[in-house]
């Protein structure tokens, strides 16, 4: 299936004449996903787990079906290892506040990378401060890679937790997950993988990678906003205390004491986002129909094209590895001497949607020593025409600024 054919499923492109290059922030949704959500509310909506009547039972069945679909999609051993959350951020906070607070001791270290999104950074600052543990960073070299040496230097016998993104949301580069996870397990640490930027774009196999926890957001994967996933190995989830307390996550509640339900229910307090889960399941169906291999191929081809077209513009600076094999369809760049916010405003005037700023990764932006970047992030509905429009916009921005710029 070509991106041109796929694009027809996304009605937003009938309403807005745009080159949408901000899927790293949130994706667009095909009508099949929106239809599934509408169908759920029209045909099966009730509060699951509560009613004894058929409708509530059907709602529960839809929710369970979605959970099983997610489990299969990322190859979890069993559906009970899938906890639905609001998004990846909530999932990371859950692990930090539950597992992190319970297992860290003074002098221990938590290791993350300099490429983390704030959601995989700020929660660890909080728990390491409380537990007087150390927060350590694995840095990248000039080609945006975490070297073997860096992995071995930072992940040590003191390390109890490694929390690492699979793909940088700013640079699009893949981290050496296999090596990091092996090293972490060798020293007895557990590993949390932030799959927010990877899961929508490539095949994920949590058993093969041997992640202890894995998180992603639905809204970057063509689902409605407000649904996300925490995968955890069952034994780990079973031993953890719940993060949020409330209805449905309990077993017995007495006036002073409560016992909790088994995973995943004990982490799902309150009425859950069933419509969102149904939408996520429909998005997974949609992706699987295309095939994750094809998804990767479509995006790789487009990234190659974007990188080669932007490289032709001598006024543009690209922040990406030389080689494309470790990069997915995320590309950071700047027009030399022009602030990314101005670039993005002018791009918007020709209908190009890119993000400009620090992309919720301020430590990385400081480390790269740039004030901010423009980021074009691609998905299966993007075509070469979108990239051509980006190039047109960049030329326009450069034309507007060049006579004022002091080189």
């Amino acid at each position, binding site marked *: 299936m070509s991106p041109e054919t796929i694009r027809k499923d996304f009605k937003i492109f009938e*309403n*807005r*004449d*745009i080159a949408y290059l901000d899927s790293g922030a949130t994706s667009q949704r095909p009508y099949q996903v929106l239809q599934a959500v509408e169908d759920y509310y029209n045909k099966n909506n009730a509060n699951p787990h509560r009613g004894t009547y058929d409708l509530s039972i059907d709602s529960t069945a839809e929710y369970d079906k979605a959970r099983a679909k997610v489990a299969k999609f990322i190859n979890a051993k069993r559906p009970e290892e899938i906890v639905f959350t609001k998004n990846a951020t909530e999932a990371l906070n859950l692990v930090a506040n539950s597992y992190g607070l319970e297992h860290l001791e003074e002098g221990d270290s938590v290791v993350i990378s300099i490429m983390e999104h704030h959601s995989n950074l700020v929660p660890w600052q909080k728990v390491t401060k409380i537990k007087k543990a150390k927060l350590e960073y694995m840095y990248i070299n000039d080609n945006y890679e975490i070297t073997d040496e860096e992995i071995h230097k930072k992940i040590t016998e003191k390390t109890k937790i490694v929390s690492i993104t699979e793909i940088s949301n700013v640079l699009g580069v893949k981290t050496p997950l296999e090596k990091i996870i092996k090293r972490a397990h060798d020293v007895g640490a557990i590993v949390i993988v932030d799959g927010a930027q990877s899961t929508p774009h490539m095949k994920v196999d949590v058993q093969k990678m041997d992640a202890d926890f894995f998180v992603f957001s639905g809204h970057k994967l063509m689902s409605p906003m407000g649904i996300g996933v925490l995968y955890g190995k069952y034994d780990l989830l079973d031993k953890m205390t719940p993060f949020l307390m409330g209805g449905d996550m309990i077993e017995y509640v007495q006036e002073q004491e409560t016992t909790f339900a088994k995973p995943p229910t004990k982490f799902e307090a309150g009425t859950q986002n069933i419509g969102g889960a149904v939408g996520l399941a429909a998005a997974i169906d949609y992706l699987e129909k295309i095939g994750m291999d094809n998804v990767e191929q479509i995006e790789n081809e487009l990234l190659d094209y974007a990188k080669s077209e932007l490289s032709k513009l001598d006024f543009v600076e690209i922040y990406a590895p030389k080689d494309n094999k470790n990069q997915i369809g995320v590309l950071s760049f700047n027009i030399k001497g*022009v*602030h*990314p*916010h*101005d670039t993005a*405003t*002018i791009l*918007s*005037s*020709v*209908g190009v949607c890119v993000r*400009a*700023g*620090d992309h919720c990764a*301020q430590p990385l*932006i400081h480390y790269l020593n740039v*004030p*901010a970047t423009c980021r074009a992030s691609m998905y299966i509905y993007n075509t070469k025409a979108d990239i051509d429009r980006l190039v047109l916009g960049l030329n*326009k921005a450069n034309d*507007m*600024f060049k006579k*004022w*710029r*002091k080189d």
Partner: protein
Amino acid sequence: MICLKNGGKTKNMDDMDSIYTDLIMEHSMASHNKRKIDHPDKCEMGHNPSCGDEIELEIKMNGDKIEDLAFTGHGCAISQASTSIMIDTLKGKTKQEALDIIDTFIGMIKREIKDDAQLEKLEDAIAFKNISNMPARVKCAVLAWHTLKDLIEKEDTEDKK
């Protein structure tokens, strides 16, 4: 001209020309107000966390009058130009005059003040009127003005102590 189907609205490059005017472009690159003041009376940091714009304003008073005003920092063309134009406009004004002009500027951007006679006191800063059409950039235009307002009001509270 490129016109876009945009949920009913159309936008085009003309909008850009009404924002990135020669005056704004010139000020965004100008350096006469981008400097440190010797022994400033006060300084104040302004920060826009969503885009990383950061400025530091320094002020030197002579009695009730703003004798000198300067800034350092980095940001987009809109925030840099807005800061520079603000400094040109407010230097030599009294605190009360400055606060009045700041409120008028913010009122113009929020579209609460539309009367040209009222806007006259903004002098060159009236060039930012069209920014109100671009919600994403409003914060860039008002950063320096809010920062200076905080600075003057803080000084006032300290004076009264």
